[in-house]
């Protein structure tokens, strides 16, 4: 398991989970380490443009794209790391990676039935599809979310899990070897560990 370290996200938390799962894990800050990867995690916390530009400026984008789009290496984007898989986001002006067609939108405050509105923060349930990423993770399983924007996929079949927060939004995407989850599996106890284990075996 290779965690792409481009300056965004809780890298250590991922390392800890994989160590506990006995899955060899490395942190990749160089092209060479990414070249050797068999699975990639793309963490991400922060605003869209900040995360996208950090990735662009890391010097790792080319080699990651070669692995993902060329060699079909499985990749899992986390939170903002999932959002940058899109074409663009309402949160910023930069172009996304475009690996899964879609736009990232802000939650409409008027549709949220709670007195607390933004961000969507806390443990919420998912309704997963039959994807291998959700093996042994039944509908209703809870994960930790903290975000103000959500992924609106262009093609329905790219949505592999949905969650309700005012609206039913897409909480996970998957297309061929490219996956993304809006929640934080590295901080979602046993459900999160199960998902990361599934990804390691995909």
């Amino acid at each position, binding site marked *: 398991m290779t965690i792409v370290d481009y300056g965004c996200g*809780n*890298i*250590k*938390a991922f390392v*800890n*989970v994989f160590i506990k799962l006995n899955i060899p894990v490395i942190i990749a800050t160089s092209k060479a380490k990414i070249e050797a990867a068999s699975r990639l995690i793309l963490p991400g*916390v*922060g*605003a869209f443009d*900040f995360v996208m530009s950090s990735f662009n400026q890391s010097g790792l984008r080319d080699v990651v794209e070669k692995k993902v789009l060329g060699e079909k290496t499985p990749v899992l984007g986390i939170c*903002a790391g999932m959002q940058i898989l899109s074409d663009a986001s309402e949160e910023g002006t930069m172009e996304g990676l475009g690996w899964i067609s879609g736009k990232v939108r802000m939650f409409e*405050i008027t549709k949220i*039935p*709670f*007195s*607390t*509105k*933004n*961000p*969507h*923060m*806390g*443990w*919420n*349930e998912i309704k997963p599809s039959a994807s291998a990423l959700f093996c042994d993770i039944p509908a209703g399983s*809870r994960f*930790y*979310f*903290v*975000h*103000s924007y959500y992924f609106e996929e262009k093609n329905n079949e790219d949505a592999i899990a949905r969650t*309700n*927060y005012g609206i039913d939004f897409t909480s996970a995407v998957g297309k061929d070897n490219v996956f993304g989850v809006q929640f*934080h599996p590295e*901080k*979602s*106890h*046993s459900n999160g560990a199960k998902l990361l284990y599934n990804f390691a075996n995909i």
Partner: protein
Amino acid sequence: MLYPRIIPCLLVHNKGLVKTINFSNPKYIGDPINAVRIFNEKEVDELMVIDIDATVHQREPDYQMINNLAKECRMPLCYGGGIKTTYHAQKIFGLGVEKIALSSGVVNNPQIVTEIAKRVGNQSMIVVLDIKKIGFSSRYEILTHNASVKTGLNPFDFAKKMQDLGAGELIINSIDQDGEMKGYDLTLTDNIRKEITIPMTILGGAGTLDDIGALIQRYGIIGAAAGSLFVFKGKYRAVLINYPNKKEKEELINKYFYFKQ
């Protein structure tokens, strides 16, 4: 369906865990890392750790300790204590802490909320307000430095200001209720609730799970934080790290969370 959060709050003093009453008389509880491990096993929703020495001793956060806590913690971790600059915040964020909490830091320099939010994202920039009723009129006021410094600030106006400047969550800490285990200050919470729409977590006073239930019943989506409730057991306050198990939590939610009814 989003669920309310139930959050143990741990105070660190002289490198050990303590529990206070009205921010005084710290009683030693145990080792922080050990407590984190226990809370991991209990699969708690989130964890708050506050270093109550850093600000009053005018020192930087204890990065070594924070690193050790973050490495262990399998749920979202909120750290506060001694964070005054963007540099502090970013360094702690890089250690694997999800939420950075400031208190006196934002009272003295409100603009720092915006600066820090730019680096770590609004969702990770948390403001903690320690609040006490002051004077004959019993009006609420924000205090800092372990309740030793009065700020003259009205918490309701300040809460709104923090939201406007980009805070992602507000933790409302009642000094009067701290350690008393007689219930949360719902009047204080009602009045803060009116001012903001960002997530709130209430701390100070929880004595039973029903106190947490009462908070959830009143506000729905909210963070219910507690110190004494999760580190003591029984009327003689024997130290016992505890947290409701899955079944107890489900029962609590089903009983008190409106959206489940």
